[in-house]
C-alpha cells in the first residue's frame, strides 16, 4: 500500500527529470512519457480506490514514517499517510491530470517548448501528489512551495508575453505571503511539540499543550497558507491573473487541484481549529464566495469569468470548513474539480477554435478569449457546447448533478450554523447570494458564447469543433458531473448519501474543553436544515438562470440599462473592486520606494558619509594637523595671537617676529606647559 504511494509520488518526478533533460530528443517530443507516467499514476490511484471501495472502511489508514535527518536529540520525521481522503484526492488529481495531459497533446501541439510543458506538468503532478501523501506539516509546506513553483513555471510558460511573466511572478509572491503565515504556524506548533507529524499534532492539541489563544493564532497562521493557495480574499488576486497560462494548465492547476490544496489543508487541520478560528475562516470563505461571484458577473474574458467562479467556489469550500460542514466542503472540492476542470477545458476548446479562426484570417489583434467576440457557437461546436452546458448546470446547482448535491450540502451547513448562532446569519446570506450570482454569470457565459448571433461572420465560418484528443476529456469530465458517481448505492438525486459520505467521515474537534460541537451534532443539524436549503438553493439557482435568460438570451432586459442604473456597482465589479490597484498603491509601491530609499541610504549616505566619513574625518583631521604644520593655524592664530596679546598689554614685545624655527621652539614650550597642566589634573 505504501509502495503504491511511493510509486505515485515518484513516477511523475522521474518523468520530469527525464523530460527536462532529454525530452526534446525523445520521439514525439516525449509526450508519451509524461502521459504514460501520469496514466500509471492514475491506474495505481484507481486500484487504491477500488481497494478502498471493497474495504469500505471509513477509518482506513496506513502510515509510514521515515527519519529525514537526526541532529543528536532531535529526529526530524516525515512520512506518507494513506487514508480514504488521500485516495480520493489522488484519484481526482491523477484523473484530471491524465485528461489534461491528453488534451494538451492537441492544444499545445504547435508550441516550440512542447516537451518542457509536459515536464512542468509532471513536476506539478509530483508536487501535488506530495501534498496529498504527506503526513506532516513540513512535507506539506515543501510540496506546497513546489506546486507554487510549477504553477509559476506554467503560468509564465509563454514568458515572451509581459503579462504572463508578471502574472507568474505575482502568483508566486502572493502565494509566498500566505506561505509565510503557514510557516509561522508550523513554527508555533513545532516549537511546542517538536514534531511535524499530524499524529503528534493531534495528540498534542488533545492533551492541551496549547492555550486556546495560541491555538487560534497558530491555526489561523496555517490557514493563511490556505488563503494564499486557495485564492481567498484578500490573497485571491493572483488567480485571475494566472489565466495567462495555457488553458489546460488553468484547468488542472488553477481550477481542479492546486487551488483546492488549501481546502485540503483546512480539511486536515479541522480538528485543531478553535471556534474563534473557525468563525474567521467561515467569514473569509463567505466573503470570498460572494465577492468573487460579483466580479465574475461583469467580466468579458471567458477565462476570467471561470477564474472568479473558481475563487467563489473555493470560498464555498472554505466556508464549509468554517461552519463545521467540512466533509461537505471536501465533497464540493471533489465534484467541483470535475466540472470546473471540464468548464476550463471547454473554454479552452472554444479559445482554441477562436484562435485558429483568427489565425486563419491573419487577425492577431482580436482577443480570442473575449466572449463579446463569440456567439452562436452552439452549432459549430456541439460536443464542446453540451459538455460545457452540463458542467454549467452542475456548477449552478441543478438537481441530478453532483454540483447540486455538494453545494446544497454546503448551504445546508451554513444554514445550520446560522440557526445555531443567529448573529452569524450573514454567512448563509452570503452563501445563497453567491449561489444566485453563480447561476447568473454561468448562464450569461453560456448565452454569450454559444447562443445569439456571432459577432463576426468571417470568424464564425472558420470555427471548427476541436479534435478528438480535446473532446474526449470534455465528455469524460462532464459526465462525471452526474450525481450517481458520488452517491452510488443511493439513487435519490436529491440526497447526498452514498459511498462518499460513508467513507469520508468527519472527526470530532480535538480542541480541549468541548468548545466545538461534535461531528455527530453537526451532522444532525445539517440534516435538519437540508430541506430548507434544498428549497432555497433551487429557487436562487432558478432566479439566477432566469435573469440570465431574460437579459442575454431573450434580450428582454437590456444589459446596458442595468449597467447605467448600477454604474457604481458595475464599475466596482468590473474593476475587481480595485483590490489590485489599492494593494499596489498603498502596499507594494510604498514598499518598493522604501527599499529604494534604504538602498540609497545604505550606499550613498551611510557608506559614503558615515563609513567613508571616518576616512574623511581622518583625512580632514590630518589636513588640519598638516595646516597646523604649515602654521596657517598655529602661526596665524596662536603665535600671532600671543603677539597680539602681548601687544595689547603694552609691553615692548612688538619687536617679536616669529621666525619659523622659533615657532617650533615655542611649541615645545607650549607642549611642556600643557603636559604640566595635564599631570596636575
Amino acid at each position: 500500500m505504501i509502495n503504491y504511494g511511493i510509486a505515485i509520488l515518484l513516477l511523475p518526478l522521474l518523468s520530469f527529470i527525464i523530460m527536462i533533460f532529454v525530452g526534446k530528443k525523445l520521439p514525439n517530443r516525449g509526450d508519451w512519457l509524461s502521459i504514460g507516467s501520469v496514466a500509471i499514476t492514475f491506474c495505481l490511484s484507481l486500484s487504491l480506490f477500488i481497494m478502498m471501495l471493497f474495504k469500505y472502511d471509513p477509518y482506513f489508514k496506513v502510515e509510514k514514517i521515515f527519519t529525514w535527518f537526526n541532529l543528536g536529540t532531535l529526529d526530524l520525521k516525515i512520512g506518507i499517510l494513506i487514508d480514504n481522503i488521500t485516495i480520493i484526492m489522488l484519484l481526482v488529481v491523477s484523473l484530471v491530470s491524465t485528461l489534461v495531459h491528453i488534451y494538451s497533446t492537441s492544444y499545445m501541439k504547435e508550441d516550440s517548448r512542447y516537451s518542457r510543458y509536459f515536464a512542468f506538468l509532471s513536476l506539478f503532478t509530483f508536487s501535488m501528489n506530495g501534498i496529498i501523501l504527506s503526513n506532516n506539516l513540513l512535507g506539506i509546506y515543501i510540496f506546497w512551495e513546489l506546486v507554487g513553483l510549477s504553477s509559476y513555471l506554467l503560468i509564465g510558460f509563454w514568458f515572451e508575453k509581459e503579462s504572463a511573466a508578471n502574472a507568474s511572478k505575482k502568483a508566486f509572491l502572493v502565494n509566498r505571503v500566505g506561505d509565510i503565515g503557514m510557516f509561522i504556524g508550523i513554527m508555533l506548533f513545532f516549537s511546542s511539540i517538536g514534531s511535524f507529524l499530524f499524529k503528534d499534532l493531534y495528540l498534542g492539541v488533545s492533551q492541551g499543550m496549547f492555550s486556546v489563544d495560541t491555538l487560534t493564532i497558530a491555526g489561523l497562521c496555517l490557514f493563511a497558507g490556505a488563503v494564499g493557495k486557495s485564492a481567498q480574499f484578500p490573497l485571491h488576486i493572483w488567480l485571475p491573473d494566472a489565466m495567462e497560462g495555457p488553458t489546460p494548465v488553468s484547468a488542472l492547476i488553477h481550477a481542479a487541484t492546486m487551488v483546492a490544496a488549501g481546502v485540503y489543508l483546512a480539511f486536515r487541520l479541522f480538528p485543531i481549529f478553535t471556534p474563534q478560528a473557525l468563525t474567521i475562516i467561515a467569514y473569509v470563505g463567505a466573503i470570498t464566495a460572494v465577492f468573487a461571484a460579483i466580479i465574475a458577473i461583469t467580466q468579458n474574458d471567458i477565462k476570467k469569468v471561470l477564474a472568479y467562479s473558481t475563487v467563489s467556489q473555493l470560498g464555498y469550500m472554505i466556508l464549509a470548513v468554517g461552519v463545521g460542514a467540512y466533509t461537505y466542503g471536501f465533497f464540493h472540492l471533489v465534484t467541483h474539480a470535475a466540472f470546473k476542470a471540464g468548464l476550463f477545458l471547454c473554454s479552452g476548446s472554444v479559445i482554441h477554435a477562436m484562435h485558429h479562426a483568427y489565425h486563419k484570417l491573419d487577425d492577431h489583434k482580436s482577443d480570442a478569449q473575449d466572449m463579446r467576440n463569440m456567439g452562436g457557437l452552439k452549432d459549430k461546436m456541439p460536443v464542446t457546447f453540451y459538455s460545457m452546458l452540463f458542467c454549467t448546470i452542475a456548477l449552478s446547482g441543478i438537481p441530478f448533478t453532483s454540483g447540486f448535491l455538494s453545494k446544497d450540502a454546503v448551504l445546508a451547513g451554513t444554514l445550520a450554523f446560522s440557526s445555531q448562532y443567529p448573529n452569524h446569519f450573514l454567512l448563509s446570506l452570503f452563501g445563497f447570494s453567491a449561489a444566485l450570482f453563480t447561476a447568473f454569470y454561468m448562464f450569461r457565459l453560456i448565452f454569450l458564447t454559444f447562443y445569439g448571433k456571432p459577432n463576426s461572420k468571417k470568424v464564425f465560418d472558420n470555427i471548427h469543433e476541436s479534435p478528438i484528443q480535446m473532446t474526449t476529456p470534455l465528455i469524460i469530465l462532464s459526465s462525471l458531473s452526474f450525481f450517481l458517481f458520488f452517491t452510488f448505492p443511493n439513487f435519490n438525486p436529491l440526497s447526498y448519501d452514498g459511498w462518499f459520505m460513508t467513507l469520508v467521515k468527519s472527526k470530532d474537534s480535538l480542541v480541549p474543553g468541548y468548545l466545538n460541537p461534535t461531528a455527530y451534532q453537526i451532522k444532525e443539524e445539517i440534516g435538519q436544515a437540508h430541506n430548507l436549503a434544498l428549497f432555497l438553493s433551487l429557487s436562487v439557482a432558478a432566479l439566477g438562470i432566469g435573469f440570465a435568460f431574460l437579459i442575454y438570451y431573450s434580450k428582454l432586459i437590456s444589459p446596458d440599462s442595468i449597467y447605467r442604473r448600477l454604474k457604481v456597482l458595475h464599475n466596482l465589479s468590473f474593476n475587481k473592486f480595485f483590490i489590485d490597484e489599492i494593494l499596489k498603491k498603498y502596499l507594494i509601491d510604498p514598499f518598493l520606494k522604501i527599499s529604494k530609499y534604504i538602498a540609497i541610504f545604505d550606499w550613498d549616505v551611510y557608506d559614503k558619509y558615515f563609513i567613508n566619513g571616518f576616512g574623511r574625518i581622518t583625512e580632514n583631521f590630518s589636513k588640519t594637523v598638516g595646516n597646523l604644520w604649515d602654521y596657517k593655524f598655529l602661526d596665524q592664530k596662536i603665535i600671532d595671537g600671543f603677539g597680539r596679546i602681548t601687544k595689547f598689554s603694552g609691553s615692548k614685545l612688538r619687536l617679536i617676529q616669529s621666525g619659523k624655527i622659533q615657532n617650533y621652539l615655542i611649541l615645545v614650550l607650549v607642549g611642556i606647559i600643557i603636559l604640566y597642566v595635564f599631570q596636575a589634573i
Partner: protein
Amino acid sequence: MDLNSYLIISAILFSLGLFGVITRRNGVAVLMSIELILNAANINFIAFSRYSGMDFSGHIFSLFVIILAAAEAAVALAIILNIFNNFGSINIDDANKMSQ
C-alpha cells in the same frame, strides 16, 4: 647669599635665555641665548654642589657643559656662516625654503 638666591638668578637667566631664543632673528643672538640657558644650568650645578656639599660632580658637570657649549657653538657658527654664504643673511627665519 643662600642657595635660593642662586636658584633665582639661574631661573632668571633661564627665562631670559628662553625669551632670547624665541624672539631673536639673528642666528648668532639665538646662539647666545642658548648659551644663557646652559649657563643657568651651570649656576644651578655649582650652587647645588656648593650648598649640598656632597661631591664635586656638579662642578665637573659644569666644566663639561662649558666645553661642549664651545664645541656646539663652533659647529653652529660654521653652519650660520654657510647660511650666510647661501642665503646672504644670518636671520634664521630667512632660511625657509622647505615650507614654501
